[in-house]
């Protein structure tokens, strides 16, 4: 590992559903559980609000990894939103990998409002994973890199 790699601080966008995962993140914070500052949380009404354009544009604007967190399937505030998320993201992630994005740059996790520890753990693990993958070079917009 070169010095550059060790110093690499990835930019991570975490889309969190308002009802579960955002509250989970909140709990992680108020319970003083540590997760990396590289994670930028974007609150969304429901995980199924996130359309593919959001994810692509996040990479465009400089993210190295994107994680989408929602309520556990069956617990969606809107009953069924995350069931659709699950199907959509399975296809989207596969398609993005198919065109050459590295595996694991986009991830989906189910985090409930009570799972502060899981949130922190997931983020720690995800940041480590992205750090190992290195900078996002396959889906970046060079105009945003100056």
């Amino acid at each position: 590992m070169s010095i550059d790699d060790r110093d690499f601080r990835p930019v991570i966008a975490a889309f969190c559903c308002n009802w579960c995962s955002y509250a989970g993140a909140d709990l992680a914070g108020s319970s003083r559980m540590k997760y990396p500052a590289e994670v930028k949380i974007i609150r969304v009404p429901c995980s199924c609000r996130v359309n593919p354009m959001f994810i692509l544009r996040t990479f465009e604007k400089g993210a190295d990894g994107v994680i989408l967190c929602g309520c556990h399937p069956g617990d969606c505030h809107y009953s069924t939103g995350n069931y659709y998320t699950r199907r959509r993201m399975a296809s989207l992630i596969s398609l993005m990998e198919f065109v050459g994005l590295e595996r694991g740059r986009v991830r989906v996790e189910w985090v409930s409002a009570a799972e502060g520890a899981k949130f922190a753990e997931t983020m720690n693990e995800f940041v480590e994973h992205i750090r190992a993958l290195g900078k996002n070079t396959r889906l970046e917009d060079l105009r945003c890199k100056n």
Partner: protein
Amino acid sequence: MQELIERAKALLADGTVSRVLGWRATDTPFGPEPAFFESGEELNEFVYNCFCGANLSKYLIESSALEGKTLAFLKPCDTYSFNQLCKEHRIDRGKTYIIGVGCKGKITVERLHELGIKGILDVEDAGDTLTVKTLYGEKSCPYSDAMLERCHACKGKEHRVADEVIGESADTTDTDRFAKVTELEQMTSKERYAFFQAELSKCIRCNACRNVCPVCNCRKCVFDGNAFDSVQKANATEFEEKMFHIIRAFHVAGRCTDCGECSRVCPQGIPLHLLNRKLIKDMDAFYGEYQAGEDTSTVSPLTAYTEHDIEPEAGKGGNE
């Protein structure tokens, strides 16, 4: 062909239909154009031959808004798109009269160019072989060598919907339609990236793939207009090439009938159907086989769910 013309003339004459959607002969034998005919006289220019690859279903969206019924000639694979559009309420089935036409695979002059046949003056269809008259002498090639990509993965000879059928069709399948997708999946992530980089960098963002696609029929596309600063008229960077094609393919996921029009029309020969087929292959594997446009009632996989669907991590684009 004469039978088609006579039938169309009869249906126009007895008032069953107000116009006919078909193909018009033009000055070159290999360039028929989609056309509406409104009189028996105009129908004398009607043509139906091996070059009539264009899928006419999408034109029925605009004719659904017109007075009276439209007679459309659809090939077996076109009927899938037609069904899909009926299902999405973009076509009013009651305002159409469908005649299924026979098809034994369609060819394109571009394929002939790729085979090194230049200066084409005329093409004669002699069953299994094509005789091509060129400025540089007479050439010939097997019919199937000049066939469109989609015809090698034919959806079968049956019309999924038709008021009547005229002519014989043949199933022209001679490959596994997912063969290339599988081949790509087996490559490494880096190799796949290089492959798509090379292909997509040819994209000139002419929007032909979008505009020809039967199910790409939003009144206002996200790529048009001024609302997004990154989604523009041209690919300013490599990112935007990928962005456009990922979104385009994903937006028709579960609705794409695999009609192959996107690849047929791409002026840069990008195999765009691969993205769509990858999505189809995945959805088949995850949620059971589904063919969009097979009927007008089955729910598409992305608008349905079960409580125990596989998790998103299962979606693998291929080897790492």
